[in-house]
């Protein structure tokens, strides 16, 4: 194949969908957070692939993926903090039990 870009993109898509499945199907909140990280990773892969093989190759894609990593880290930290607080409150880290948003 001349163009390897579609392969990268498809790889990214696969990772994203697996991450999506994990985020919506798992019971443990930690695992949901892990799946979210996986999804963000897939996006990064996309950016960097386009940075090299896209129509206008430049380093912008890499810059953006750096910012993405920063935001992902911040979000993971805050997420774990929330999870710990919730665990103290409810005694379980089960997402099924976090249902005060009903009705």
């Amino acid at each position, binding site marked *: 194949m001349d163009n390897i870009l579609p392969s990268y993109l498809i790889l990214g898509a696969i990772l994203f969908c697996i991450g*999506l499945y994990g*985020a*919506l*199907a798992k019971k443990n909140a930690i695992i*949901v957070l892990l799946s979210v990280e996986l999804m963000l990773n897939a996006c990064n892969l996309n950016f960097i692939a386009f940075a090299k093989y896209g129509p206008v190759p430049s380093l912008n894609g890499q810059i953006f993926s750096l910012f993405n990593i920063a935001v992902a880290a911040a979000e993971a930290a805050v997420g774990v903090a929330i999870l710990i607080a919730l665990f103290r409150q409810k005694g379980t880290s089960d*997402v*099924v039990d*976090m*249902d*005060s*948003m*009903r*009705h």
Partner: protein
Amino acid sequence: MESTYAQLAWIVPLAPLIAFLILLAVGRQLNRYSAHIGFIASLVSFIFSILILIERLGEETNYTWNDWDWLSVGGLSLQMGFEITNLNALMLVIVTGVSMLVNLYSAGYMKNDDRIHVFFSYVALFTFSMLGLVISENILELYIFWELVGVCSFLLVGFWYFKPEAKAAAKKAFIVTRIGDVGLFIAILLLFWYMPGHQLSFSAIHNALSEGAISSGIVTLIAILIFVGAIGKSGQFPLHTWLPDAMEGPTPISALIHAATMVAAGVYLVAVTYPVFEASATALTVVAIVGAFTALFAATIGIAQNDIKRVLAYSTVSQLGYMMLALGIGAQVAGIFHLFTHAFFKALLFLAAGSVIHMVHKQNINEMGGLGKRMKITAWTFGIGALALSGIFPLAGFWSKDAILAVAYDENPLYFAVGLIAAFFTAFYMARVFFLVFAGKPRTPYEGQEPKESPAVMTIPLILLAIMAVVAGFVFTPFNPWLGEWLGGAAEEHVNWTVMILSNVVGLLGIGLGYLMYKKGSIARDAVSSRVPALYNLVHNKYYIDELYQLIVVVPLKALGDLLSLFDRYVVDGVVKLAAGSALYVGRLGSRLQNGQLQGYGLVSLVGILLLMVLLVGRRFFHVG
């Protein structure tokens, strides 16, 4: 202008209608004074009817007013209005006269009833309907009033609705006459279809049929269907079963509706559409046969009944049979004449019976006796009525029955024989009732107060009717056929002495037999019934016709009704419940989504995004492909 009173003929039904409305509104407050309202209204109508009749004695042409466009559809319009002919004018007097006397009588009879105002309002409504029927200008208008009269009969028969027999009788009356009404309705439809210009007025029918505008097969069909309607309303065989049961209503009603007026509506219908019958010999034969059969049939049942009102009811059925027989053999004038006289003496008999019932609170003639001494006026008037009904010279019944029998003698000896035998039975059962009720000694003791004569409000109508029963016959005798000329045109001039003598003899024989069996006791009461009990049971149980109808008609229809109600409950309701249930189910399903589970919400969002993507973007691709 010539027809001054005929122009105002609309006042005649209007007065009772106003009385009805007044009684509907303030009847409860008026209470006993409702009787006054009813009587005044009927008196007003009666006076106007007399004026119209007097005016019509000199008139040649009918007065018609049909300027009210009731229904205009497409190019077709149905008029409503009224018409005054000689026949109408006579009927008006009959109806208003009997109604006025019944109103007066009921003031006394219904005095202690709580719902007296309801009673008088129904009577006023009935009078309005019957008068409207009589002056109808076209057959559709007549049908409207026909139905209204049926409703009033239902209301009045079921007046004491807390009695289950009265409820059942009212339903029976309405349903059985309804069967006849369907025939009449189909006849109206056929007339509408086949009449040139879709005209329905009686004058148009008369013209169209004298020109032969409708083919003979259709005319026969129409005539027979009209007669079916008359069978229902006038209680001819086989739709006679409702009339005896209708005796559950108050006795003044039986006098007004089931003796003088509503049941005469059937006869009037045939008379007013007579051109249709004249154009079809088959139809006339059917009418005559049904009439003759009913006359004999009902008379035989009457001799074995023990309730005084039932005897009179079967007598009414029998006399209506005579009227139909007269119409069927072409003696239209004789039939109307018999209707005229019958109205008076049958109303008289019913009111006298009511007077007796009012005093002794019993209806079984075997439990009465010896009332002649105590209730002189009632006894005398009842006797006059009974003699008139039996056709004894020179009372009214003799002349009218003689007119019918004379024509029957010329037409067909079979009809004459049947009429004669029925006359014998008529005389016999009337004598039986008279002697058992008024003569001899009381068979059972009368509880409570000693029976004495009824109050004047009740006896005055009796006396007036008795006078009419004596003199009314003289308007149409073979020696003086004035009524024939005035009503029908042609005059029958010849006098048939054979018939006159034979009918008198037969009547006297019947009375004599009744005297021997019930007063003197020379022949035992159960002379026939003990030897041939089967015969007695047959007539006493009305030839088991009611039971037959129950088996053949009522049971299958009820089963069908039950089946259909099951269908309604499970299938139709099931579908509705299904619709409601599925909406509920979908709602419940949807509400399970609102459970606070973020992951569920995420899934729904995912599905939504996918759908959006496919629908919005994919459209482009699928159009190309």
